[in-house]
């Protein structure tokens, strides 16, 4: 196995921030592999790649409670890049959060914002720091309404940040306000028009809305049709996206009068069950079974 393939895998995990979705065993495994890789390849990979992989290693250490290692990585990065980068400030706040407590970390970030970011024209860094501060605040808030208040005030400052809208959509979804949630996710699509994952998320929400909230057949069908459109767009953008095509199949089956759409979805699901990765293959088989679409 060539070194490049391994490096590309680490970089892909770093860029998509997939490591945040790993469970404990996976994180521990990834941490082990990455630290060995970085030890032997410090010279042979590009410096930007090396630094961003270091950042990932830092967060892996934090998740795994390896506080000393995290501190060492932070120190070496700080010595290299200085303290004025937003990403490093967020890392520092994370360290304060785990070594001291949330309040001290919040105070540190608030001071940064008060002293410089409020007046600087560097809105990107401001956003990164503000988001970290918000996540610290959210930890303390129990009520969703209070979280929303904080979120909305930040969204008003940064209306073009997709992640904020996405998070707001999730909060509304938790509160059961599906129409508002859908609106938030649609805002994400305005910013990232080819994000097929969000398209299928919207389709999912329309599906729930039709099943749970809508009263009357006409209203339900309207929601289902909207959901189908979103699911189809997600399938159009990604030919083998399992969630998108499963939703197309489920919704079109529910609607009953969309035979050709159902046929296309079945074809795609059969294809996914043949060519995709192990997990998707099994899931696709299961969905085909559940919807009794198998020939």
């Amino acid at each position, binding site marked *: *196995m060539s070194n490049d*393939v*391994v490096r*590309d*895998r680490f970089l*892909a*995990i770093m*860029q*998509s*921030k*997939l490591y*945040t*979705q*790993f*469970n*404990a*065993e*996976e994180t*521990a*495994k*990834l941490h082990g592999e990455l630290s060995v890789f970085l030890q032997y390849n410090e010279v042979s990979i590009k410096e930007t790649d090396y630094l961003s992989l270091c950042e990932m290693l830092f967060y892996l250490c*934090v*998740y*795994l*409670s390896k506080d000393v290692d995290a501190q060492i990585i932070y120190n070496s990065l700080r010595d290299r890049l200085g303290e004025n980068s937003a990403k490093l400030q967020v890392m520092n706040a*994370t360290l304060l*959060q*785990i070594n001291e407590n*949330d309040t001290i970390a919040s105070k540190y970030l608030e001071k940064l914002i008060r002293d410089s970011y409020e007046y600087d024209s560097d809105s990107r860094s401001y956003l*990164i720091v503000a*988001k*970290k501060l*918000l*996540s610290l605040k*959210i*930890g303390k808030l129990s009520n969703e309404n209070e979280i929303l208040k904080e979120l909305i005030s930040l969204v008003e400052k940064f209306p073009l940040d*997709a*992640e904020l809208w*996405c*998070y707001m959509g999730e909060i509304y979804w938790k509160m059961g306000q599906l129409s508002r949630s859908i609106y938030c996710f649609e805002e*994400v699509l305005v910013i*990232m028009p*080819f*994000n*097929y*994952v*969000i398209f299928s998320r919207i389709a999912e929400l329309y599906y729930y809305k039709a099943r749970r909230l809508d009263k009357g057949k006409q209203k339900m069908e309207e929601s289902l049709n909207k959901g189908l459109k979103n699911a189809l767009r997600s399938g*159009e*953008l*990604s*030919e*083998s*996206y*399992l969630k998108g095509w499963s939703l197309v199949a489920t919704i079109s089956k529910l609607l009953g009068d969309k035979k050709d759409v159902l046929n296309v979805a079945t074809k795609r699901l059969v294809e996914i069950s043949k*060519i*995709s*990765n*192990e*997990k*998707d293959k099994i899931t696709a088989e299961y969905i085909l079974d559940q919807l009794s679409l198998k020939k």
Partner: protein
Amino acid sequence: MSLLSTVTFYVSLLLIGHAGFSSFEFHQLAKKINISDPQLPRDIKYESYLGLILFIISAFLAFTKLTYLPLRYDNQSTKQVLSQGQYLKETPFNKATNVDNMIGNDANGEVNFMTSFIDISAKRAQFKKSLSN
């Protein structure tokens, strides 16, 4: 780079280098004995043509099929190298994302996973618990 490509690459460099040196010697000689319009001997010509052709072949052999590793560990075959059997990446968006789906990636993960809002303390506690079991 495959072995075959490396071998042809070095052979072609050798041939071109040798042809270059022969050609240099020949022209020096031609100048010394005052031939006004020297014609290069055929063997040098053929040698350099052959060198060029071998080099082109080696450059094409150096193209290897693109391979990927699955990103997650949740199946036993993590070290299995995946490939679509292609030399280049497909450009239509719906096909290009197939690679992401195959290896379990999400190109917009930074937004879709909402990584800024992860509750680190909760996550640490949970990991500690499940790793100590």
